[in-house]
């Protein structure tokens, strides 16, 4: 459960003297972004509930997940309201966790080689009042463009993506800000199954932070380790097929600092 002391700690990632000071938390920021998104694209809360449903479905098949159970629309709609319209099922559970990635420059002949092809970072101001939009994450856009440019790749080459979804709306906004999904289309595509395994683009095959849990600063490493496993087709990602290019996106705060990493399978 979310507790008040954790909320206080989390609030320090806001523009603290002008947001956290008055009680603003990351959940409140995400909730206002969610409201703007719903008004802008004409969605109801029920439409956006598809994110936690899909993430739980993926997590139920992932033995590494923290939340290994499915969630129904009823579960989501009946969960407690954290910051209207955001509900408990929209929030990635805070967990302890760790992941490790070994980098080397001389792989053995029989190793599957996943190469780091591009990296990018982006930053943007934090005060919510000075933004002209809450539905575009500029730091994510910049980090992703930088990483793709370095990898000599375009959004069309991306087959697998791991996005930072501490709140379900942030996952959707990340996909759209990266240019992988047209703005406003994510809930529709998710509900038709177009972002599930077996399609042109697979989103958060491991269940995202929603089902893996949110280990704070380690979340980027979580996503990176999952992406390597997805590209290598190791258990439980055998069904993903031989995808060549994947991208990992992580973000601190609400559009504060973002990192994107492009990985390519070369053997």
């Amino acid at each position: 459960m979310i507790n008040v002391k954790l909320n206080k700690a989390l609030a320090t990632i806001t523009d603290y003297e002008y947001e956290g000071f008055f009680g603003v938390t990351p959940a409140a920021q995400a909730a206002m972004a969610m409201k703007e998104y719903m008004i802008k694209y004409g969605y109801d809360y029920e439409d956006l509930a598809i994110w936690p449903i899909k993430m739980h479905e993926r997590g139920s098949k992932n033995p590494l997940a923290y939340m290994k159970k499915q969630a129904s629309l009823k579960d989501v709609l009946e969960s407690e309201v954290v910051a209207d319209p955001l509900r408990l099922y929209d929030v990635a559970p805070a967990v302890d966790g760790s992941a490790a990635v070994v980098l080397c420059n001389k792989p053995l002949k029989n190793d599957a080689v996943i190469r780091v092809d591009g990296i990018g970072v982006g930053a943007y101001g934090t005060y919510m009042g000075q933004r002209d939009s809450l539905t575009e994450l500029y730091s994510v856009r910049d980090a992703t463009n930088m990483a793709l440019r370095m990898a000599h790749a375009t959004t069309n080459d991306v087959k697998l993506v791991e996005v930072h979804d501490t709140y379900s709306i942030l996952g959707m906004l990340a996909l759209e800000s990266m240019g992988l999904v047209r703005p406003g289309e994510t809930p529709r595509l998710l509900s038709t199954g177009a972002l599930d395994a077996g399609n042109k683009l697979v989103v958060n095959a491991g269940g995202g932070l929603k089902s893996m849990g949110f280990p704070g600063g380690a979340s980027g490493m979580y996503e990176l380790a999952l992406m390597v496993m997805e590209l290598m087709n190791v258990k439980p990602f055998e069904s993903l097929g031989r995808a060549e290019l994947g991208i990992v996106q992580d973000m601190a705060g609400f559009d504060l600092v973002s990192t994107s990493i492009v990985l390519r399978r070369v053997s």
Partner: protein
Amino acid sequence: MVDQRLSIPRYWRRMPQYYRLEGVQCVKCGRVYFPPRAVCECGSREFKPYPLPSTGKLVNFTVLYSVPVEFEKMKPLIIGIVDLDGVKVVGQIVDCMNPEKLSPGIDVEVVFRMVKMDGTYGLINYGYKFRPVNNC
């Protein structure tokens, strides 16, 4: 009680903002910023104080049930973005018993209130909040 997070000198230095909603206006191009900035979009570093108007319109809001520890006794909080003559400010919306009556576009006014008791010995922090002009 709650741990001290915002030091007393830092709080004191923010009084023009917390108490009077004092922004800054660029002397060269006229852009207004709240919170104040050191450098303008136009490159200038010359600013003069610019108190924001005391009425405006609600832009966006959320009813926050899961609050930080120092706000536990005031929950739920209504957190909103308010447009004060073109400058948007984030803050609490108060004096509203029925949040379902709030909607983007309604008139709000600035009020001066206690924000929280901070620190083991309870330094009381004051600042701006907003309330709907028409009762709700």
